[in-house]
Structures are given as structure tokens and as C-alpha cells.
């Protein structure tokens, strides 16, 4: 799993690429938690190149969301591939997050 970082107007953007499962999600979780601990509290995770998402992967995002909220920040998700979004919704994780169609929309009003 590849994680690219960028920053726009103080918003930390993580662009993920590949499979998010039990093997790869601990890295994402650690990355998110380290970023949040260093003061990044406005975060967008771009999911456009994520080809598979298991509950373990969704759980890593949820852990990031929880850590972010504790610092009164926000974590948004955007640009899901349709099949990955379906799985995310069926497993019931989407209720916890703000999910946007693309990065541009996610950046609006942040």
C-alpha cells in the first residue's frame, strides 16, 4: 500500500493506493496517529486508488477519526471507487464519516 502526502491550506491530504486489509492497515493507522499527534487535525483521505477495503482497513480510518475528534479536528474521506464504497457502506462504516465525491468537494468549507 502506497501513501502519498500533500498539504493544501493547512489541510493534510493522504492519498492511498492499493489494498487496505489487515496486512496494510496498521501502517495507515500508525501514519494517521503520528500525524494527528504532531498537530495535524484537518485531514482528508483520498481513496481513489484503493482497490479493496476490509473491515481492518476501515477500522484504521475509524481509529484516525476518533483520534482526530479528540483534538476537535475532522477527518474526511473522498473519491471512493464504486465497489469499495459499496463494501464500506454495507459493513456499516460510512455512517461514522463524512464522505465526499472528490477532493475538490471535500476541501470546500473545511
Amino acid at each position: 500500500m502506497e501513501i502519498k502526502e500533500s498539504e493544501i491550506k493547512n489541510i493534510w491530504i493522504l492519498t492511498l493506493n492499493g489494498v487496505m486489509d489487515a496486512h496494510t492497515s496498521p501502517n495507515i493507522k500508525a501514519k494517521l496517529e503520528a500525524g494527528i499527534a504532531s498537530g495535524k487535525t484537518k485531514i482528508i483521505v483520498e481513496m481513489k486508488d484503493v482497490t479493496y477495503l476490509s473491515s481492518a482497513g476501515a477500522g484504521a480510518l475509524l481509529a484516525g477519526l476518533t483520534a482526530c475528534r479528540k483534538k476537535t479536528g475532522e477527518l474526511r474521506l473522498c473519491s471512493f471507487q464504486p465497489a469499495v464504497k459499496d463494501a464500506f457502506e454495507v459493513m456499516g462504516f460510512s455512517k461514522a464519516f463524512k464522505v465526499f465525491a472528490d477532493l475538490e468537494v471535500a476541501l470546500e468549507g473545511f
Partner: protein
Amino acid sequence: MDSQKISKVTPTLAEELSRYIRLLAKAGKNQFHRHLYKPLVYAGWERQMKYNDSKFIMARIDEARSDISKLNTIGPLCKRLISQSLLESASSLGNSSIFFLDRIGAISMLARSEEGVEFVSIIKDPLKEFNSENQVKREKSFEDKLENISNQELTDALNPIELGKKEVKVKLQKEALALFHQISVFSNKGDIHRCRKLIANYLIYYAEEENNNREEVEQVIQALENRSPGFTLELNDFMAIQLYYSIFSGISEGDLKKAIQGIRKYAFTFQGNPDIKYFLEIDELEGKLQAVITKKDLWKQLRKENI
């Protein structure tokens, strides 16, 4: 193979072995003989003389449990129970072993006793060996059964409990409240073992639903953690074992609904925490489940039913 020497049996290990014995019981006589009966006989636990039946010894153990002066007799009585059940039948040995492990989880003196430690040391490796040998077989069986499951069955299995109907919602809230009340009672009594079981049930059955006293339960967990450090970790392991057992007994019984709901419950309860037991094994099963849903092109239908 994990052949580490132990000086005390943790409640988690006792629970895990108890679940393996239940899975073993469904695996047939030969496996039961190989992974439970023989190790105990080879360790010299079989007795030549038959004196009481195992049920009588179980009653004596529970009697001794309520009398503080007899607590130190429980270890030898449990050993006698196993010795006796080895002479009776496979089912008696299974029940007695589960009984012994359950009491080990509940009575800390027994968890540190010579008999408790010896019993667990004898059965631990053979049972873990059984589990790892059967893991691949069970995963394959899960995959085969998934291939043949009907679309409707799969949809039903993935549906959460319908909370839209008022009476169902009220019933669940009442159950959760009753369970929460029991947790409070046993927490005040300092009965960690009962609390662990009750909280595990609460979190597994109501985690997916609305916040039925969830915050208060979290406070109880924190209080128990302060009183007994490591409680949260043991609680998580305990829940993971319960869910793992539920998933695999569902697979062995051909009850895919139970298996799929277990995977879903695991996902909700632990939310991707890699430190939880069976994290990789259950993720593997979820991968197979998602592959079948994709192959059958069911995501859209499932999404509609979940919203």
C-alpha cells in the same frame, strides 16, 4: 508450536482452550482421541479405580467453591474429575475439561494451582495443534459453502438487526438495560470473572446498535481496569475468542449466517485493531466473503437493504 512453561493460567487461555474443545467435539472421535484423550492418558491422568461418577465430583467442586476453607481442595478434585471422566466417555471428558477450564477462569487460586497449571500444560499444545491443522480446512469449507449460498441467504446474513420497528428497539433496549444492571451488580461485588463475561456479551450483542448505556459500560471497564490492571486486554481477548468460536462453529455446522454475522460483529467490535486476537485469520475470511459478493454482483442489493 507454543510449548512455553506457564506458572498461572490466564482466563483468556482457559477460555480459548475451552472453545477449542468445543470445536474438537465436532471434529469426530479420532481427532478427539488424538488431541485430548491421549495427551492426558500419556501424562498419567487416567486412574485405574472407578469410584464416583464425574457429575458427583462436579457437584462436590461447586460445593467446595462456596466454602472458603475448602477452596484448596478444588485443584485435587478437578484432577480427580478428569481422571474419572477418562474412564467414562468422550463426552464426559469433554464436559469435565470444559468445567475445569471454566473454574480456572473464575477462581484465581485454581488458576495458580499445581493441578490447574499441569492440566493446561498437558492439553495446550495438542489443542493448538488441532486448531492450526483445521484452520485451513475450515477456511476452504467456508469458501465452498459461500460459493453455494443463495443471494437471499447472503443478504439476510449481512443485514443488521432491524431497529426500525419500535417494538424490536424497545426489546433490545430493555435487554441491554437488564444486562447493564447485572454488570453493575457484579462490578460492585468485585466479581471480575462474571463482569468479564457479562461485558463481553453486552459489547458483542449491542455494540452495533444504539448507545444503550454504552458510555456507562465504558466507565465500568475503566474502573475494573484500575482495580485489576490488564482487564481491558483480557476482555478484548475474551470477546475475540467468543467471536472466533462463533464463526468457526457456524462454518462447521454449515450455518453460514452465524459465520458471516460473526465476521461482521468482529469488525464492529474491534474496528481494525491489529492487536486483537485472530485479526489476520478473520480478515482472511472477510476477504473470501467480499470476493463472493463481488462475484455474485450483490453489493448494490446489499447496500439497498442496509440503508
